Every structure is written in C-alpha cells, then in structure tokens.
C-alpha cells in the first residue's frame, strides 16, 4: 500500500488546494496520519473511498481526542551591549501565551476490497469552546454514524451533515461532555470515612462550605 506521503501527493493532484498534511507518529507503531482541513475533508474522503488503487471502503474506528489549552512559555534572550565596553549583558524575557486547544477526530480506514490499511485521517476543530464544528463523514461511510454521535455526546464536536446528531450514550437532557479533560463529575460518592488521594481532592473541590471543626460530623441531606 502507498505511504501517507504518496497518498497526500495523489490527493493534492486530484484536488489541488485541499488542506492535507502528514502527521508523523513517533513510536514503534509508525501509523502516520493525514491531517485534513475541514473544508474539503468530505471530498478527500470520497476520493479515498472511490480511488481504484486505494478503495478504502471501510471506516473502522472514529475516535475523539481532547487537547486542552496549553500554556506555552517562551524564553527569549536579549543581549544588550555594555556602554562601558565590557561583555554584553544577557537578559532573559519570558513570554507566556495560551496555545488554544482543540478537539480532534481520528478516523481509521481500511479496505475490504483490497485488504489493506490502515489509513488514518485527522480533523481538528478551531478551538474547544465555540468553534467545534466539523464536517460529518457519515455520507461517505455509514459506519461513522453511531461513532460520530458518540464523539458529539462525549466531546461536544458538532458534525454538520450528520443525518441524526443526538446524544447516544448519555440521556438527552445531560448537559456536559464527559470525556473532556476539564469535566468535573457530580459529587456522589465521596462518602468514604477516610478520604485520601484523588477522592479527597474531589471532595475538597466539591465541598460547598467547610464544617465547623475537627470532630464535627457532616450530615448531608
């Protein structure tokens, strides 16, 4: 089967101007992936499905990944020359910026006709808060239908063009997206006599008001 670079070149030859980039995958598994831009993702997907030498007709797995905002500290060294003629003074300036996170959807494609694979596609949203739309690949591979619903349910990615985008695992009135890294669970099990570790951290976070003092029993209604 072709390497991801070859696939990218053929996609660009067929659909010039499409946003396709190869993302290297470190580690022994070496499953490199193609990062697609949302605008022409569906056209690229259809090409991958219909191309006679690829025939990627089977989308096996759709995964959502949450990459939270990261604080990036950049250190710049500024060297100012010494007016007295000595060695220049080097000062370090640290700039902090927030690199916005994103929600990523990873598709694993195989070919049942030609029995090869996988080809890995990635789509990323612009940010995690308000621009969370991505094109749905369900019109290309029907196997994405339930899996994209699950990514919507647990991560909050809105798939445009999905035939039936509703929650699939949680109930319809549920308001959160639980698989996100910043999801806080409801406080419903910290009834341990000696909370410690993660349980204590969660209990401390959820506790509304501190009790009166040591030995006071906290009776919750």
């Amino acid at each position, binding site marked *: 089967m072709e390497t991801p670079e070859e696939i990218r070149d053929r996609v660009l030859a067929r659909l010039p101007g499409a946003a396709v980039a190869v993302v290297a995958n470190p580690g022994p598994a070496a499953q490199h992936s193609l990062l697609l831009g949302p605008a022409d993702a569906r056209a690229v997907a259809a090409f991958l499905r219909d191309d006679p030498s690829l025939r990627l007709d089977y989308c096996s797995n759709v995964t959502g990944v949450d990459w939270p905002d990261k604080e990036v500290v950049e250190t710049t060294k500024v060297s100012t020359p010494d007016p007295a003629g000595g060695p220049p003074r080097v000062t370090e300036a640290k700039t902090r910026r927030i690199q916005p996170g994103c929600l990523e959807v990873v598709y694993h494609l195989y070919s049942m006709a030609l029995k090869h694979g996988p080809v890995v596609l990635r789509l990323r949203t612009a940010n995690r808060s308000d621009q969370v739309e991505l094109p749905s690949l369900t019109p290309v591979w029907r196997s994405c239908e339930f899996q994209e619903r699950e990514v919507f349910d647990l991560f909050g990615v809105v798939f445009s063009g999905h035939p039936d985008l509703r929650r699939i*695992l*949680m*109930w*319809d*009135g*549920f*308001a*959160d997206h*639980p698989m996100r890294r910043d*999801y806080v*669970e*409801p406080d*419903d*099990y910290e*009834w*341990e*006599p000696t*909370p410690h570790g*993660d349980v*204590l951290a969660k*209990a401390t976070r959820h*506790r509304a008001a*501190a*009790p009166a*003092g*040591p*030995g*006071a*029993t*906290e*009776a*919750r*209604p």
Partner: protein
Amino acid sequence: MTEPAPPSPPVTDDERAELRRHGILLTSIEELYNWGRSNSVWPLQFGLACCAIEMIAASMARFDIARFGSEVFRPSPRQADLLIVSGTVTKKMAPQVVRLWNQMPEPKYCFAMGACAISGGPFKQGYNVLKGIDRYIPVDIYIPGCPPRPEALLHALITLQEKIRGQSLSGRAAPRFLQPDAACAYPVPEFGAHDLEPPRNPEVWQPPATARKEGA
C-alpha cells in the same frame, strides 16, 4: 430494638416429627405462610451486565436454581418476587430499575448481586454509574463478587429463605408489607442536567457520617 423472647412453643419439634410420622401435620399459620413464601421465590428476568451471565449460569443445569424453588424467571414484574440487580446500575437505567421495583407486588425481595450493584464496584469513578442500587430501593441481601460465582447466588437465595422463615406476622419482625408505616412505592428519580434528581433517596439510604476536618 429488643423484643421479649417468643414464648416457647407448647409442642416441641420432636413431638411434631412424631406426629408427622403418623401422617398428622401440625403447624402454625406463620410457619406455613413463611414456608410458602420462602420455597417459591420467583426471580425477575432482569440482568444488567456481567453478573447476569452468572445468574443465567445459576439457572442452568449445572447449578440449577430451580431446586431451590426459583423454577422460572418471570419476564413481567407483576409475576415476580425477587429482583436480582445483577450488574452495574447506571444513572440512565436507575429510573427503570426503581419503576420495575414499584411494579412488583409485595412480598418482594431484592438482591444486590455483584460489586457494582452494591456500591458501584470497579466502575465507582463513573459519571454515569449509580454507586449502589441501595440508594433508591431497599436491598435484602448483598452478594459480593465480581462476578460472584453461581454458588454465591445460591447461598444468597438460601440466606433469603432463612430470613423469610425468621419473619413473623406481626411485630417488628414482620415483613415490610405487613408494617403499616412502611413505604409502598419508591419515588422514581428524574434525569437532571448533570446527575439524577434526587441523587439518592434519603428514606432508603443515608451516607455514613464522615468527619471532615477543616482543610483536610
């Protein structure tokens, strides 16, 4: 909760055995009533997760729950006596479990089979996992295990039978449905935006009081 000890029966067990050998059965209404209830406990065909497979195995030929009186697993709650909550109760499923419990007519019993039904089990850190079915309905027997062996379920059934035989028709040892102030139907929780509402039934389950020191 101390009660005066029951009066010693006027007829001893040896004398009753002797009478039985002559074809005369001497018993009390209470004993007959408990015998009937304990030897024909029909479970509801209700399995949630992995423990359900061990429950099915307990009803199969090797372990055979039928010889204890649980001949059939009834699909309809109206015809069942025993709710074996086998498997993880999720918050999405909890209202249905409580509804089924309400639909079962008295006398009814409940097993919490497996670690998940007792307290949430290995999935305790779950946003969708109810940390034990005893938050909403009263449980008679807790069966630990993940999953408990079918023999453990049979042991629980035997223990339930002993519990039923120890009940009396009046007084504090009477079963729930013969006590005038006990609840009949349990409120069904609703789906909230983040959790079930209410997250627990305070009449059934109170969290153990914990001493949380300031800053601890």
